[in-house]
């Protein structure tokens, strides 16, 4: 019955439209990305070749700017430093993140949930807060030297290698989360087969599990590489400027010159983008050599691990937590409760006045928190949807612009928020847009759009790792049975990647919450937003108030994320568990 009724309709459709439903999905994804990322980026990159194109003082076309990078010592150094920092951080952070994720899922770890929450927290906390924490801890007048007498710490941290390690401590969660997402489904068949053939646990890990995890590990390392390449706050704050200038710093300098050199910013952005593209291409070359869709009908959710207090794994996790979160945040927490930093630890020096001040100043903090939460929530939902569509199209369809989607999604990670923000002004403040009644510049919604653009790449990476494991044969089987695109997505893809989808949306939420650069350059008048509030307090030297505000807001964000992800995990588990008994009985009979 179904066969006879379905066959004529498909026969009708194909010749009329010639485009598959997947292609329409792909086209809409591309359109959205063009509006959100490509057009603003192009506007900035164009400056490298046509200086003054959008500021009404075009000076003709030229490629001279591109070569300037090899002439000025500052820029040569910046290029080299950026490459060094990003590569080292990708290696160290990738190893650390993957190792912790495997540890978390293979041994029963009492610190596991803490590790999960810490990973989220590190991603969403603004890098200037972590930087401030490290400075408070490790500078010559900092806690390590003054309070604990560890005189070697300043020299250990404030050198290029120390900086690279700090950067990887800041970005290892990218690898941790992608690998964790990939570990959610287990194919125990392979492991069992290996064990039956006499392989020890380590050998199984090395020859069976790690190769299966390779896409996730690599995409984690790639994310770290790109994130470090595009990060401005931490290297700029940690390295006292010219000791260690990076490409993003050079962009910042170009934008701060007057008359402004958008063309130089465009050149730098071009190089950042080019390096990033090379990295992505290398990633694809590695992945294309093999297939990674190993999930089958017998895949199971990773079992909920019971509490265990085994010393070694917990010790490793604790050290990781200590280095990545407890030291920098602990320093910030101390500052937020300390009346005067210089007076050291003592009971009289403890105070709650910074918190009282933050909660009391005419509601500015609360209204900033509220508007930032609303904007971040909208941006998170938007980027969750777009990222899911993009990841689906890239993984399961032969859409011709797949490569473009992938590159675009990664592009906006690599480009500093200031540059993207300027691109947004070029596009959305253009007289053309004004006449079309689309002048979103000066409207809070532009922050949502920019937030989506900033968060989509992270969300896509998280989802790609998970989708790579869903075999296309499952979808093909469903399609043969007459299931349409919507039905295939709803009944096969979404249930299998639900956990990753929730992770992706929540990561986007955290990232959008604290995006300082975009928020400060695109902020409409009279709208209080959180990062600007915090940064203003920092600039005015009110470290106590600034850290108090950040900790309150960060705590709230982590609470929201942890709450939603716990709820989602619970719901998913229930949904899957109530259905599996039926499924297994069917299979057995």
């Amino acid at each position, binding site marked *: 019955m179904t066969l006879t009724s379905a066959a004529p309709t498909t026969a009708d459709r194909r010749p009329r439209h010639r485009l598959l439903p997947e292609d329409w999905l792909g086209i809409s994804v591309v359109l959205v990305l063009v509006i959100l990322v490509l057009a603003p980026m192009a506007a900035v990159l164009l400056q490298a070749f046509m200086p003054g194109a959008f500021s*009404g003082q075009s000076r003709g076309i030229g490629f001279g700017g591109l070569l300037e990078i090899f002439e000025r010592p500052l820029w040569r150094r910046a290029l080299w430093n950026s490459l060094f920092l990003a590569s080292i951080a990708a290696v160290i952070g990738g190893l650390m993140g993957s190792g912790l994720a495997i540890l978390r899922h293979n041994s029963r770890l009492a610190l596991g949930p803490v590790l999960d929450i810490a990973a989220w927290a590190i991603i969403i906390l603004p890098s200037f807060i972590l930087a401030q924490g490290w400075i408070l801890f490790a500078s010559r007048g900092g806690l390590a030297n003054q309070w604990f007498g560890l005189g070697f710490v300043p020299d250990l941290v404030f050198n290029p290698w120390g900086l690279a390690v700090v950067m990887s401590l800041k970005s290892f969660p990218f690898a941790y989360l992608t690998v964790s997402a990939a570990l959610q489904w287990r194919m125990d068949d392979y492991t069992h087969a290996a064990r039956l053939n006499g392989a020890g646990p380590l050998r199984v890990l090395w020859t069976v599990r790690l190769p299966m995890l390779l896409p996730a590990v690599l995409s984690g390392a790639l994310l770290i590489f790109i994130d470090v390449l595009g990060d401005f706050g931490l290297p700029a704050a940690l390295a006292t400027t010219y000791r260690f200038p990076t490409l993003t710093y050079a962009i910042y300098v170009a934008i701060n010159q*007057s008359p402004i050199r958008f063309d130089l910013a465009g050149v730098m952005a071009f190089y950042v983008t080019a390096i990033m593209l090379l990295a992505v291409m290398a990633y694809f070359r590695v992945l294309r050599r093999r297939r990674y869709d190993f999930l089958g009908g017998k895949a199971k959710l990773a079992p909920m691990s019971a509490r265990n207090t085994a010393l070694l794994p917990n010790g490793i996790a604790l050290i990781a937590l200590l280095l990545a979160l407890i030291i920098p945040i602990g320093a910030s927490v101390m500052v937020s409760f300390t009346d005067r*930093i210089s007076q050291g630890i003592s009971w009289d020096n403890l105070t709650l006045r910074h918190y009282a001040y933050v909660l009391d100043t005419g509601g500015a903090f609360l209204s900033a928190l509220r508007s930032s939460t609303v904007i971040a929530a909208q941006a998170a939902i938007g980027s969750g949807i777009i990222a899911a569509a993009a990841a689906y199209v890239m993984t399961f369809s032969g859409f011709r612009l797949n490569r473009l989607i992938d590159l675009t999604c990664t592009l906006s990670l690599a480009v500093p928020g200031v540059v993207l923000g300027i691109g947004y002004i070029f596009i959305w403040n253009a007289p053309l847009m004004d006449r079309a009644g689309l002048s979103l510049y000066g409207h809070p919604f532009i922050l949502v759009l920019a937030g989506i653009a900033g968060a989509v790449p992270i969300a896509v990476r998280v989802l790609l790792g998970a989708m790579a494991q869903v075999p296309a044969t499952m979808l093909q089987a469903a399609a043969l049975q007459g299931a349409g695109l919507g039905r295939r997505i709803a009944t096969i893809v979404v249930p299998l990647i639900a956990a990753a989808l929730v992770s992706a949306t929540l990561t986007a939420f955290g990232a959008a919450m604290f995006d300082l650069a975009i928020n400060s350059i695109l902020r409409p008048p009279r709208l209080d937003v959180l990062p600007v509030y915090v940064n203003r307090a920092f600039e005015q030297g009110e470290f106590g108030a600034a850290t108090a505000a950040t900790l309150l807001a960060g705590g709230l964000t982590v609470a929201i994320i942890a709450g939603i992800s716990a709820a989602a995990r619970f719901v998913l588990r229930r949904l899957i568990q109530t259905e599996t008994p039926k499924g297994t009985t069917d299979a057995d009979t």
Partner: protein
Amino acid sequence: MLDLNDLRLFVAIVEHQGILKAGRALNLPKSTMSRRLAGLEAQLKTRLIIRSGEAFTLTPAGQDAYDLGLRVVQAARDAEDRLLRARQDIAGQVMLSATSLIAARLPYYLTALTGPHPRLSFTLDVSERDPDPVSDPSDLLLRAHAWSLRDSALIQRRICRNPLILVAAPAYLVKYGTPLAPADVAAHDLLAYGIDARPETGLLSNAAGQVEMLTTPPRLITANAAVLVQAGLEAQGLVLVPEFVARDALASGALRRLLPDWTGPAVAVTLLTPSRQNMNATLRYCADQIALQVKSDILSLGQQVPKQEPHVPELPPGVVTKLTHGRLSPQMRPGSHGPAPSSNSTESDMPMTPFQTVLGTAALTTATALALPVAAQDAAGPLVLYTNDFEGAITDRFEADTGREVDVVQMSGGEILARIAAEAANPQWDVLIFNGSYTFHMLDQQEALLRGVEPANLGNLNEIGQTYLPENRSWFPIGLAASCVMLYRTDLVETPPTAFADLADPRFNGQFGMADPAVAAPAYPCVAQFFEELGDQGARDLFTSFFENGMRVFRTNGPTGAALASGDISLALITSQVAYTVMAEGEVPVSVVWPEDGAPGVVRGVGISASTARPEAAKAFVDWLLEPDTQSHLAAAIPSDGKFEPTVTGAVRRPDGPPEGQRYLVASDDFAVEHEADIKTWFADQALN
């Protein structure tokens, strides 16, 4: 007695047709549900439910139990509803004590509040007295005052200001003649607004900054504005009243404005409320709404009037009468100001026919349009200000002083310039405050600034202001500070330097730093000054000697100060604002070296966008910044930004800023702009090594 909880669970079981479903809905385990049901059945000694497989039926006893139980549950829900709503709804009685200044408009404000919230009611007291912290029962107090209010535990929220103006009835003027200058007033009977015979009530000033004192003692002094207007209408003399109360009478021609160039001191309207935590939702709502309406009404300059007037005939008379009489009289306390109840004026406004209203509206609109011909050129919407300083100290004060709205966009200096450059095709800003005159020079070269602006109070400029004022009047200096002085830790530096060149001395090796001139807005004028003073080669030699002595370069002045505070460096080349702020905070022992030849300076200015759509509001903003009061206010309001040398006579400096009479050396704008790219590039490339 029955356990009421059991009854509740039973009702839930019946409503959900099953124990399992009810358990899910109530989030209780199935075992609890069935145990409680069994308990209920045991207590009632009868079966309530018959369960057989899928079927679910109630026994007759069960039906009775359900009916009775439902009533109990319903009663509990009602109780919850009522108790909760009381805290969240906008409802209840609010005791409002209002000034007579706005008495005539109160019915509209209150109807706007009571209309959407039927269970909200008011008791109203019209009074001018200072609030008595002990005995005053009012929740919200609205006061108009040209004097300062007595301190109390209440929060004072300044809503707006309204100038005193001199008016008189045409009949009076025909009889006694029209005064043409402030001195002429002496020959007339004066009725003035105030609480006692203070001399400052009689101070008149004009736009040119001249001040005249009215020497005649007033024949009547009252803070009841309605009485004054009535007295004026009855031709009893010249009346000095807040502009707001006389607005209607002026528009209808019943009164005439005298000495239109001259205004008396401004009357501030202040809302006194308990602190925000101590107000419930209703009070907060009422306070915000009343403040908003009073502000828009007083500041609207007639724009709001046409919108509001047509509502008059629609007002249900009951509301007005009830609020002004029925509830008012018991609350009137002895000692209220004013011989006549101010509600009189409300009454006299009421019996207008719709035709009169329309006529009055038209007259009012015309009158305001004539009075403010220039404001009509401005595009709608608030003035947009881009600034890197003084955020939070501008909005309220400017709006209260001038009655115009302003949107403040605060960013770091670099971000502001980036935003302005990115917007070049379609500028969004009207005025710019920036710390660095060279930036204005550069913007002016790009023809981005409005030239030839002539503020009326340009004469206020003092010597500093005159020195830096550009000839083409494209921007105006509003403050001067040092872009770098030497700030050192007295506990770490034994022999402080006396001049900048001393920093090349080995005793400072690796121990001093400064902000990056390519990033920090005030650091460039510092470096530029050295280049102009010492010449290109001389300055390069000086800075090379600094770099060779291990000078550290930080991103901005903030981190430089932080590094000094943490002991990372022991001496910093830093702006005087940061230097004296660190010193005033006293967290670490520091001292400032201000070289005898003078320290490099940086001039803060204000300029108007060449393509502004609101030129009049922008000019009013510049005027406002050139007032001594404004500069004193800015200095006092923001501790760090406020440490500057004012550019107008009579402005008050901060006591914790640099001592008076220091020398400043400011690089000429021409030089700074011309060599900017060269100097910054050289500095950046040198600092690498």
